[in-house]
């Protein structure tokens, strides 16, 4: 298996468990040796005890056998203990490192992998690898040893008859290998079909209102029927193939046994072999078969594990595109504008999504950014905390290039409220502490008040200790937005960035929010991205974006006079009277 290389790459996570990696297989090997000795002792009991009528000898050797069994058990336990320490330790270390690495990746890489895929890699894939380490320790020596041991023993007993064993063994190996490699692609297809049924179920749940509104229940059921039919068909196809595995290997082994019996007839007739040796050969053939089956399972586990190893290594090998270069100490220029864009252009890949943007914002100012869908509003603000790096030009904060700050220094001075408001499970207070882990209850309440969230939080029984479900599902869209705004305010940011984050608020609440922001945190520089003119029209500076270009900059009044795009936006949203205010 060529993918073994990828598994090898992860070996560094095992380096603390060298002792277990040696002891485990070693003791398993000793146990296997004992397992091979037991039948010999039994033969001895029969030949020298039973046949010679020596009952005392029978009892003595019986005790030896029992002792062998008990020490074999002890060795097995040592092996199992090593396996559990090493495999779980390996998994734990791998998880810690992978999580750390994911945390170091920037938005671009996270988008590339997708969160659901990262989650599977963190959980399922690592569990699979953990299992393979345990199996490695438990079985990697035992099965090959039993196979080789059996082959060697048969050769010692009778070289000519052992040829049957030599031929049969690769045959079994081939059948195992053939059927397994043939079924692997099917298993991938099954997984895909299963993903599809899962997707359909998820869509059916999230869109249940729409489905019922269009009365499409039947066609949704039909779609699902088709998907499950596909799944059943493929499962049956692979079932037909893998159902061959046991019968075929059984046939090969039995035919080999028949051959041994038939040819041994001639050999025994000439007197160069005994009856007992024939029995032994038959037993060794059976042993090879059993060990092969275990080995085959081991191969399946390792094939799966190497697929997992590839997926995990892929994450490790991805370097964050935005890197931290700290140039300490940073010298802040108190006279410089708070934020300054100097001829900034940016491309995700290929074409520029933002072109030659230049502007500067003074401390305490409010900046509004407006423009159509896809005009580059969110892209622009994502450049300030370095979620992405500029392709050309530079961004300065307090006169220092954002690239010269450490991530922490840079991001801790900002409060960012994303478009999609997300809360984590815990209490309201837990969520607020994200901004500042030392915030007092009073600070939290005042932030909630500024964000217009205090009225509904104060009404709930537990106040700021109210429970937040995962994703904040127990709050309405507007409530979630207000809580995320409060969370950003708790951190007492020097720069507050609101990325279209009051869209679910009604006019009255939004107006109150705007007023509170202006009066309660006046020293904070505020950047407000919005689709609504009313949200930004009183800003000190308004930037109008259109398809990646800055087509206007100035106050509401100035822009009404000299920016066509802005006028267009205004006339669509405001009455004549409102626009001219």
């Amino acid at each position: 298996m060529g993918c073994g290389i990828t598994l090898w790459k992860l070996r560094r996570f095992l380096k603390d468990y060298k002792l277990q990696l040696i002891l485990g297989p070693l003791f398993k090997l000793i146990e296997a040796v004992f397992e091979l000795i037991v039948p010999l002792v039994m033969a001895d009991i029969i030949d020298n005890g039973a046949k010679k009528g020596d009952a005392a000898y029978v009892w003595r050797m019986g005790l030896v056998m029992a002792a062998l069994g008990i020490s074999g058990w002890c060795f097995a336990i040592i092996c199992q203990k090593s396996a559990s320490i090493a495999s779980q330790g390996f998994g734990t270390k791998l998880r810690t490192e992978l999580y750390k690495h994911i945390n170091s990746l920037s938005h671009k890489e996270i988008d590339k992998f997708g969160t659901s895929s990262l989650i599977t890699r963190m959980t399922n894939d690592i569990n699979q690898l953990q299992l393979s380490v345990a199996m490695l320790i438990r079985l990697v020596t035992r099965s090959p040893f039993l196979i080789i041991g059996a082959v060697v023993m048969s050769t010692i007993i009778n070289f000519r008859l052992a040829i049957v064993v030599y031929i049969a063994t690769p045959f079994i190996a081939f059948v195992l290998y053939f059927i397994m490699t043939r079924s692997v692609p099917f298993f991938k297809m099954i997984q895909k079909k299963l993903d599809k049924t899962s997707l359909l179920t998820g869509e059916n749940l999230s869109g249940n209102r729409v489905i019922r509104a269009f009365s499409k229940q039947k066609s949704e059921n039909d779609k699902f029927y088709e998907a499950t039919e596909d799944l059943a068909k493929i499962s049956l196809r692979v079932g037909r193939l893998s159902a061959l595995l046991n019968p075929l290997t059984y046939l090969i082994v039995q035919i080999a046994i028949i051959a041994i019996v038939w040819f041994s007839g001639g050999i025994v007739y000439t007197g160069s072999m005994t009856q007992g040796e024939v029995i032994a050969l038959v037993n060794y053939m059976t042993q090879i078969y059993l060990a092969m089956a275990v080995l085959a399972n081991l191969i399946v586990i390792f094939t799966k594990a190497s697929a997992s190893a590839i997926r995990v290594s892929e994450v490790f090998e991805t370097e964050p595109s935005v890197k931290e270069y700290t140039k300490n100490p940073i010298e802040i220029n108190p006279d410089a504008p708070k934020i300054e864009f100097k001829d900034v252009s940016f491309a995700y890949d290929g074409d520029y999504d933002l072109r030659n943007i230049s502007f500067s914002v003074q401390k305490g100012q409010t900046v509004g950014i407006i423009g159509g869908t896809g005009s580059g509003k969110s892209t622009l603000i994502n450049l300030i905390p370095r979620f992405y790096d500029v392709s050309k030009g530079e961004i300065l904060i307090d006169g220092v290039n954002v690239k010269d700050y450490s991530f922490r220094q840079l991001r801790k001075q900002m409060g960012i409220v994303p478009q999609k408001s997300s809360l984590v499970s815990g209490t309201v207070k837990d969520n607020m502490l994200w901004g500042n882990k030392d915030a007092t209850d009073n600070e939290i309440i005042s932030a909630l008040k500024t964000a217009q969230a205090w009225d509904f939080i104060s009404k709930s029984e537990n106040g700021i200790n109210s429970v937040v479900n995962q994703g904040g599902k127990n709050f309405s869209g507007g409530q979630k937005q207000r809580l995320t705004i409060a969370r950003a305010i708790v951190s007492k940011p020097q720069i507050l960035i609101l990325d279209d984050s009051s869209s679910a608020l009604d006019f009255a609440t939004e107006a109150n929010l705007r007023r509170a922001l202006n009066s309660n945190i006046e020293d904070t520089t505020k950047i407000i991205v919005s689709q609504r003119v009313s949200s930004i029209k009183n800003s000190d500076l308004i930037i109008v974006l259109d398809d990646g270009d800055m087509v206007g900059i100035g106050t509401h009044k100035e822009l009404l006079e000299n920016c066509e795009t802005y006028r267009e936006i205004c006339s669509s949203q405001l009455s004549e009277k409102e626009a001219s205010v």
Partner: protein
Amino acid sequence: MKKGTTLKRILGYSGKHIKYIISAMIFAIIYVSLTLLAPVLVGQAIDKIVGENDVDFRGIANIILVLLFVIVGAGLFQWLMLMCTNMVSYLTVRDMRRDTFKKLNSVPLSYIDTTPHGDIINRVINDVDYVGDGLLQGITQLFSGIVTIVGTIIFMLALNVKITIVVVIITPLSVLVASLITRATNKMYREQSVTQGELSGFTEEFISNQKLVKSFAHENIAEKQFDEINARLKVCGQKAQFYSSLSNPSTRLVNGFVYTGVGIIGSISVINGNLSVGQVSCFLTYANQYTKPFNEVTGVIPQFQTALASAGRIFSIIDELDEKPDNPDAVNIQSCKGNIEIENISFSYAPEKELIKNFSLSVKSGQRIAIVGPTGCGKTTFINLLMRFYDVNSGEIKIDGININDMTRDSLRNLYGMVLQESWLYSGTIRENITYGKPDATDEEVIRAAKSAYIHNFISRLPDGYDTFISEQGGNLSQGQKQLLCIARVMLCNPPMLILDEATSSIDTRTEIRVQKAFDKIMQGKTSFIVAHRLSTIKEADMILVMKDGNILEQGNHNELLAKKGFYYNLYNSQFAGNN
């Protein structure tokens, strides 16, 4: 649900494929008998190879001929048995999934609103698989295991009764040891799976919120939390894995004792002249063989338990009550004028908290009703009632004089075109999404609808145009684009009434003008309900419903409501307050 009934119901599912089950059992009996017979024949053949110049070649040839038939038969019937069990298991899995899925489309919407979706998906996908793997594969293993045990006992009894009794009595010891270990490790397993669940939950939540973690420079705290759970998982994982892995060597130890015991008693019997050497070696073989199915059977039991628990979870969905069925004489309305009479309705989600109380409203064909109120005031409740996603507790809603409870739900819902706050698209092409309500629409119709929703230009710029594939939840489209597609979807169906739920809130401003125009056009002559944010929409409405905390506070047109100087008056004024 009791274990017994759950099992019965699973068998009920498999019962549809009874011919495969019966065949599987018959094949299993044949295959196991043949596999047991093979070593006996091999033994007989070996008995004919006694020693130098004493080999019965013809006898061996005869036995080998029979043996060939036996092993080919054993292989063949094993294969047939596996094919049958596959059939039963995959078809049962398929049927169970279908029934569960079908149920999701017939339960009251409140079930879907209140049950975590991840949980339901988990049941449809994983739990059903556990039933397939555990129970059905388990049953065959159990069955062939039992046949093997019974067969072996019969063969042993034929050889020697005394030793057979010894073997039969001692062997279950290994089963006992295994079950003792399983019971002792159960608690550790539970602890491990709870911690594993905690870690998965944390991972899922924090990786989904990775961007948030970054923007708050929260990485160190998150890593610390993660490490804490991870460290706990390591401790209980090592424990659980170690103690559960004791069961394999321990049962082997017991089996080893059985083997030794048979050897000692057998040899003593030989010394006493009760048994031949050949019989002892035959017994030893059977003693080995006899313990194997026991181990297999014990291995199946935990799988069985998982499967039963999973089946219980699946049936709990299937057993959910259906939405109240349509009245038997419910009419199938094709179209309507759009006169709506709401007479004295009351409604509440939970009995202790009444939301809408004795509300009446009369809407004439073609009127526009704006629903206004602060965030979270329960505007969707009203829509839920209009479309009968939920039923009113008392009072009635009539369309053109017919109570909506006397119409079929499907035909009622087809009267409305709905654009929801959260646009729902499914993974499929853009065309498939637009034609969702009218699958037989022609290309011209689709393009016309897309044009009037102002999304045609965007679509034609895409490399695959209307055949562009939209990924899950419309992931590759912006909010605005998704909403425009939903509008196009409604426009294509051209229903007589409309429900627009904050439809234009996140479409960019320039498109919004055009959409507004398109809406004006489509609304012409149609009764429309709009959850409104925009002042112009509100002002132009024939009727405004002002809602707060789920109640309908005021109703009337803009001027009437202003004159009232009530809640609406304050709401309206506060909008301008920010501008002064």
